């Protein structure tokens, strides 16, 4: 309906900034490359190194899996809860929504830094509050046992963007449907399961995929500022691992191979999420 020329800037950008680097990454994944001398082809040796020789890659992969498995549902459910609570137009709702959205626009580096302070085991506000209630005060980032939980906690409070997406979904549900259901005598719970959930499914799918990708790939700043992967690799997630292999230890080939594996895993998870939610049906709701 509209001229395709409108897509040119986006297309050029996507090619230059995403597709081209992606191709380069895939090629580098099969090479030995230190960024100083020309890359040397070494077949699939990088992948063998990752699984057989490097003891750190499996740790990073495992951590990432755990983090993704815990943080993704927390974030999606948290955003859903917020959206359900705040989407009705009641007095104060506008204000609450703004308040709930605000943490989403704190620059990530500032956000991560603030969490380091909040999680400080002795002086941090969180443990001071826990202490005031006589609750145990974990060492958070200071212990290999709790550090990853600290990261999850920081991730679980970034709900603003997800909430916005879901409120859009909730608003799109026609009110007549609810009215009809009420007449039929359906309770709140039944209305939620039979009407709300199926109808916001497309938005839920987008959010799920977005949070999945965030947990698997978008944690670089968080880990870089909060823990540097420690103590003893307990918070080493894939993006930081890749960065350190490549930019700190100059093994760009290995880093690229890990990136390729990460992308493949993320793509598989995305497809699974997509299938689990039976497609997203955007095209049906216009």
């Amino acid at each position: 309906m509209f001229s395709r020329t409108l897509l040119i800037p986006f297309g050029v950008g996507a090619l230059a900034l995403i597709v081209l680097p992606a191709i380069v990454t895939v090629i580098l994944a099969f090479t030995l490359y230190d960024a100083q001398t020309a890359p040397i082809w070494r077949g699939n040796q990088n992948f063998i190194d990752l699984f057989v020789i490097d003891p750190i890659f499996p740790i990073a992969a495992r951590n990432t899996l755990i983090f993704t498995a815990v943080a993704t549902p927390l974030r999606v459910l948290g955003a859903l809860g917020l959206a359900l609570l705040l989407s009705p137009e009641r007095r104060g709702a506008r204000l609450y929504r703004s308040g709930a959205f605000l943490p989403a626009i704190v620059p990530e580096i500032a956000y991560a830094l603030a969490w380091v302070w909040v999680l400080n085991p002795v002086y941090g506000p969180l443990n001071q509050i826990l202490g005031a209630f006589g609750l145990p005060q974990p060492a958070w980032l200071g212990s290999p046992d709790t550090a990853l939980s600290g990261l999850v906690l920081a991730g679980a409070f970034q709900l603003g963007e997800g909430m916005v997406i879901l409120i859009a979904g909730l608003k799109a549900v026609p009110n007549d449907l609810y009215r009809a259901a009420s007449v039929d005598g359906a309770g709140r719970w039944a209305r939620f399961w039979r009407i709300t959930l199926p109808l916001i499914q497309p938005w839920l799918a987008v959010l799920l995929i977005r949070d999945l990708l965030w947990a698997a790939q978008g944690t670089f700043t968080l880990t870089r500022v909060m823990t540097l992967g420690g103590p003893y690799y307990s918070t080493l997630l894939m993006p930081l691992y890749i960065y350190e292999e490549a930019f700190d230890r100059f093994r760009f080939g290995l880093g690229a191979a890990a990136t390729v594996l990460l992308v493949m895993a993320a793509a598989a998870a995305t497809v699974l999420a997509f299938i689990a939610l039976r497609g997203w049906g955007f095209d049906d709701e216009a």
Partner: protein
Amino acid sequence: MKPRHNPVWGWLYHLTAITVVGSGLLILVFMVSTSLRAPGSIPPPVLQLIPDNPSLAAYARAFSDLPLARYLFNSAVIVGIAVPLTLVFASWAALAIAGMGRRGWRIWLYALVALMIFPASAFWLARYVLFAQIGFIDTVWPLVAPALIGANPLYVLILAWAFKRIPRELWESARLDGAGTLVLWSEVGLPLVRPALGAVAVLAFAQFWGDFISPALYLRTDTRMTAPIALQALIQYDRTQWPVLTATAVVLTLPSVLLFLWVQRTAWNPGKIYERVEA
């Protein structure tokens, strides 16, 4: 749908909302409260929301230890260029995608999600080499470049969605009046997707404003560095100097908050990404 009869529900609602929203905002409260402590002071052993002898000394330190004002200005230049471009390019792409037939629409949705799958770490080195080839190192362009893809393919998706909700008849009648694509975009499309545009503006702003990898990699000259680099540097100098660090974090956060407050008055509040449009 709303049980109005029982006032207890109302109170419960406000109580829940304040607790939930408030706990999310605590992080900002702690940031501000810590930043008001005197730099170098020993942290209090118990929780204090307002420190004894609050002072702005930490802010003064943040601005004197580093050319923070200069960095903030540079960041402002970046977002000043990048955010408007993001809105233009993202909405162009979104409009074209929204206008496609069922098949094209579907393909592009998949394509957008596929583009989101590549992590940033896959881009750093390759983009650096690319930017170095075309002489962009140490200019604003590598930092602005993501505007071409609408900062994040997700934002194109949000906008495409919003455009798609505009009834076909509106476009067609405007076209009959002789409007070309650009006019349809600026006069028909944009005004009707203002809330989505507002949302994308705020999110894109936050992204460009908070980016600290790109300046660290692509910039060289000190006088061109952006504000997140200042925070990164201060963390390196002394990662326990909490008043100064949080003061810098507050300074870094403030512009995003101000923009958000302004946008939500004029175009968008987080309750809506699009409005229902009647033909």
